[in-house]
């Protein structure tokens, strides 16, 4: 697959360098570690620090979400691989304002180990209190009874949004963690893959799929989904995704939700809006109120084709959090 890069070994370094140079008013790189990025703006003393992170290749996830109202810092991993504890610990030290730091990341074995090691080091070596909330919104990744095994996909965006707002409201660490966990509990996603991405280092497609096929439940790193079949219309795909989400979480007539239709990297907005159109129809028919909607590339997988649908069921606290303004290099909400 064609890529506009220099040396595949340095894609992450060069991307980070470009990103930091492009947004000097938003982002700065810590001198201790190239993969440790924090907000360029001074954060308040006593505010809980919000730390996000994960592998590269998901842009705007995750470094795009550092800014006012979202995260205070990010640890950047290699492509599709968790960052090591070093940058996580450096960011933790930089964004701790005496109220502790919350780690928000997707539920993957590698992330759990690296962030877990960093949290232990922060506690033992730096005396910084760390709270953790994992994203596990993908209903296709494990059955309901094994929810602790589910991976985090686009729903991570809502969890950052909720926790970022809670920290900005001045909540303490326990309450920021509580809000982040509630956001995760109330969030469900499911995706469809149409075409693979390829890693710059291997150039090989991350999974095999026919020209006329789609894969329901495909993961954000090309992990196979729950079934592969002939491609169907946008409406039918949207029906399936929303159906499986609503089968997993009770959302009733009169309930309010935030909706995210997320592109995986190479799917045009045109297609995403066609999918959103149907999602809106289904929810309206069921009497579910769409309180806020987001359509676009929020957490991608390089140039993968396809999309996911995410619903977050809202209560008053989450409504307030979702309304909170945000100013990040790759996402602004007024």
């Amino acid at each position, binding site marked *: 697959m064609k890529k506009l890069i220099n040396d595949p*070994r340095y894609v992450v370094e060069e991307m980070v360098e470009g990103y930091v140079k492009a947004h000097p008013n938003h982002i700065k790189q810590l001198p201790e570690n190239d993969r440790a990025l924090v907000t360029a703006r001074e954060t308040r003393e006593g505010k809980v620090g919000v730390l996000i992170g994960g592998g590269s290749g998901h842009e705007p996830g995750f470094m795009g979400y550092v800014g006012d109202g979202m995260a205070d810092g990010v640890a950047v*991993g*290699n*492509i*599709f*691989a*968790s*960052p*090591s*504890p*070093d940058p996580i610990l450096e960011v933790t030290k930089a964004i701790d304002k005496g109220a502790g730091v919350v780690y928000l990341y997707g539920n*993957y*074995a*590698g992330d759990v*180990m*690296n962030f877990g*090691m960093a949290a232990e080091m922060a506690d033992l070596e730096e005396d910084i209190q760390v709270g953790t909330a994992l994203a596990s919104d993908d209903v296709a*990744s*494990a059955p309901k009874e094994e929810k602790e*095994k589910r*991976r985090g996909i686009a729903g991570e965006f809502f969890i950052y949004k909720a926790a970022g707002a809670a920290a900005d409201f001045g909540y303490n660490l326990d309450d920021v963690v509580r809000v982040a966990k509630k956001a995760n509990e109330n969030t469900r996603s499911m995706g469809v893959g149409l075409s693979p991405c390829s*890693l710059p*280092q*291997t150039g*090989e497609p*991350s*999974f095999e799929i026919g020209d006329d096929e789609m894969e329901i439940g495909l*993961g954000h*790193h*090309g*992990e*196979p989904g729950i079934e592969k079949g002939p491609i169907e219309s946008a409406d039918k795909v949207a029906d399936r995704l929303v159906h499986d989400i609503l089968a997993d979480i009770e959302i009733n007539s009169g309930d309010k939700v935030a909706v995210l239709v997320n592109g995986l990297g190479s799917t045009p907005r045109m297609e995403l809006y066609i999918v959103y159109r149907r999602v809106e129809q289904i929810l309206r028919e069921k009497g579910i109120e769409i309180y806020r909607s987001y359509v676009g590339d929020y957490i991608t997988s390089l140039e993968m084709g396809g999309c996911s649908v995410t619903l977050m069921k809202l209560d008053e606290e989450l409504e307030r959090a979702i309304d909170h303004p945000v100013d990040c290099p790759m996402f602004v909400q007024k």
Partner: protein
Amino acid sequence: MNLTAKQLKDYFKEIVEMIEKEKDYLCELDRKLGDGDHGVTMSIGWQAVNEKLNNELAEEQDCAKISLTVGKTFLSAVGSSVGPLYATGFMRGAKAVKGKTEMNDNDLAEYWIAFAKGIKERGQAEVGDKTMIDTLEPFFISLEKQFAESNEFLPAFTTAVEEAKKGMESTKDIVSKKGRSSRLGERSIGAQDPGATSAYLILSTFLNFVKGQVEVR
């Protein structure tokens, strides 16, 4: 037998070479189960280790310090899931040979047992989960048992690596239960686990290296 600090470093350099050779094969195995980057990840980590071996560690004579630095360097370079796993292994191994500039039979047995048990503890996986533990657990059980009986490292290690190989091969027939590929369920059957494979290669490279060293003498 004795293994000097220099020989330990030479062994780590052989891993660097071996990983470069096997990189594509490991990626290919991973494409069937995950995102197809296991070989790349291992290469990133071992290249970083190579850099340390050639510079900071070039004059180092403390086996524990060497192993500790290898673990930490690998972790910093890769993160991922293999980062913490191998880092824990090499750091636990280092702890078992603290202050030694040469490792005797007993040290070597303790080093490798601590290495494999450390990984098992960090990853919390069981035999049959289709991970590197399918290679490493039969390996350390066998090594512990054989060495307790014979007190001779090389024959005990040889048998243990045979067990590791059987463990690695057994991953073809099992359903993934840990890590990303666990989401595959039944579809993971038939594919050998890349993590189990690279773990075996790290052990068999040591066996070949040690055999080569013994023959030279």
